[in-house]
């Protein structure tokens, strides 16, 4: 395809804008992961598969109830939150302790179970949620520069979700409970906080965000039972690039990842994923604590 030699700058602006907006999606993948790690030092290997599970739940909801993807959120979000509470309370709370390994092993097993369960019920066929005209609508920012309406909307929602999570963490009693329990489980108990309940609420919140990420994913691209682990990788990379413990950092991390991938893809379509991983490795080498780490006193 011949590139317009008179306006390569415009090309790059479009590319970077697209990358920024995809970053919103990656930040959604990452936010729930970041939250859980911050509150209970748990690395959820099944996180990506839970996003895919949410996508399938949204699929079933839209098909049986005949509603659009956005409306399906009203069911998918509470349902995933309840699943998160139950998962933490019944299974994952038992794995928490001094050792980092049990939660990794259990969530790895969970990942396998979810993938195979989805495979058995839905087959390996690629699926996608239809959102209608919004999927192809574009907005003209200025001469030659266009952004997709759907990516823009998803980015705006991602910013809103992160702002909401920040609000919960730093301006509510629940957020105080999360931070205190993360600081010291035993002293938090002295305040009357039941750690099992606090952790379960954190997981419920995480999976509520996962539900939104799942619906985003389902509308944006084709999905099948096996794509979970790749989403997990993007989520991890966004969290690490942005800095552990900072939700806005996770957004920044997602954007850096998205832009890196977009630039890579523009140079050579086969380089898309590689460019993202390279950016991740560079940040890890040069600034391992991430771009905006929250300093722990």
């Amino acid at each position: 395809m011949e590139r317009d030699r008179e306006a390569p700058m415009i090309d790059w602006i479009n590319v970077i804008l697209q990358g920024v907006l995809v970053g919103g999606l990656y930040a959604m993948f990452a936010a729930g992961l970041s939250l859980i790690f911050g509150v209970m030092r748990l690395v959820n290997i099944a996180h990506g598969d839970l996003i895919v599970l949410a996508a399938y739940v949204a699929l079933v909801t839209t098909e049986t109830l005949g509603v659009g993807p956005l409306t399906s959120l009203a069911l998918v979000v509470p349902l995933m939150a309840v699943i998160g509470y139950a998962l933490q309370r019944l299974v994952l709370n038992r794995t928490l302790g001094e050792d980092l390994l049990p939660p990794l092993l259990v969530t790895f097993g969970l990942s396998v179970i979810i993938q195979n369960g989805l495979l058995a019920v839905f087959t390996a066929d690629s699926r996608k949620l239809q959102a209608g005209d919004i999927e192809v609508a574009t907005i003209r920012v200025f001469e030659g520069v266009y952004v997709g309406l759907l990516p823009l909307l998803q980015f705006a929602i991602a910013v809103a979700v992160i702002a909401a999570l920040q609000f919960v963490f730093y301006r509510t009693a629940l957020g105080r409970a999360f931070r205190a329990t993360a600081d010291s489980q035993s002293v938090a108990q002295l305040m009357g906080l039941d750690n099992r309940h606090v952790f379960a609420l954190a997981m419920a919140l995480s999976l509520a965000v996962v539900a939104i990420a799942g619906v985003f994913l389902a509308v944006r691209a084709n999905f099948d039972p096996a794509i979970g682990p790749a989403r997990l990788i993007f989520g991890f990379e966004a969290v690490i690039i942005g800095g552990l413990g900072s939700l806005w950092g996770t957004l920044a991390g997602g954007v850096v990842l998205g832009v890196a991938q977009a630039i890579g893809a523009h140079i050579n379509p086969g380089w898309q994923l590689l460019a993202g991983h390279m950016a991740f490795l560079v940040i890890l080498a040069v600034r391992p604590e991430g771009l905006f780490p929250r300093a722990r006193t």
Partner: protein
Amino acid sequence: MSEPPLLAVRHLDAFYGDFQALFDLSVDVQAGEAVAVVGANGAGKSTLLSSIAGLIRTRRDAVTFDGATIGGTPAHTIAARGIALVPEGRALFPSLTVEENLLIGGQLKRPGYWNLRRVHELFPMLAERAHVPSTTLSGGQQQMAAIGRGLMSNPKLLLCDEISLGLAPIVVRDIYARLPMILAQGTSLMLVEQDVVQALKATQRVYCLQEGRVALAGAAKDLTREAIAAAYFGV
């Protein structure tokens, strides 16, 4: 005493793994009383408080509070019953500001005299430094914040673990000067202390622990320095 005590610890054994820290320990706190528990390092004072607060598992009937046996029940339910522990070393939450530490102390929303405003009246410097990270306070200020945090749950019994630890004498005197106000509002006190002089001045009765056992018990005014020193060191 015809009335049953507010807190009755009876034949308490406490273990850290295989290591036994407390042997057949029995202590009392009457409602409205201030009781001191003194002893050398390793005597078992903090273990006693941790056992009462539920951080260490014990037999159910080893600890009776307000008429109910609470030994071994989860720490968060014991806090809900009206026992607040001010942990050794203050143990404020580093991720929270001073005010947030106080607010989380009030998480249980137990009714009573103490609220944020009244804790600020008791310790005015906490109001001045409300929104700074709790870790930026001096040792004495952190101790006041930790005590204030304990009061926010309106406990019937406040357990204080070595509040004089690492503080200058003038700061310790300043903190101890506020304890009568806490007692006056109806909260009973159990003070674990290495500073015996301060503890004797602030309380009505004293227990002296030595190697996990009660070596001496009596009214603060009745015990001589020699008797306490003997019990403290086991000579």
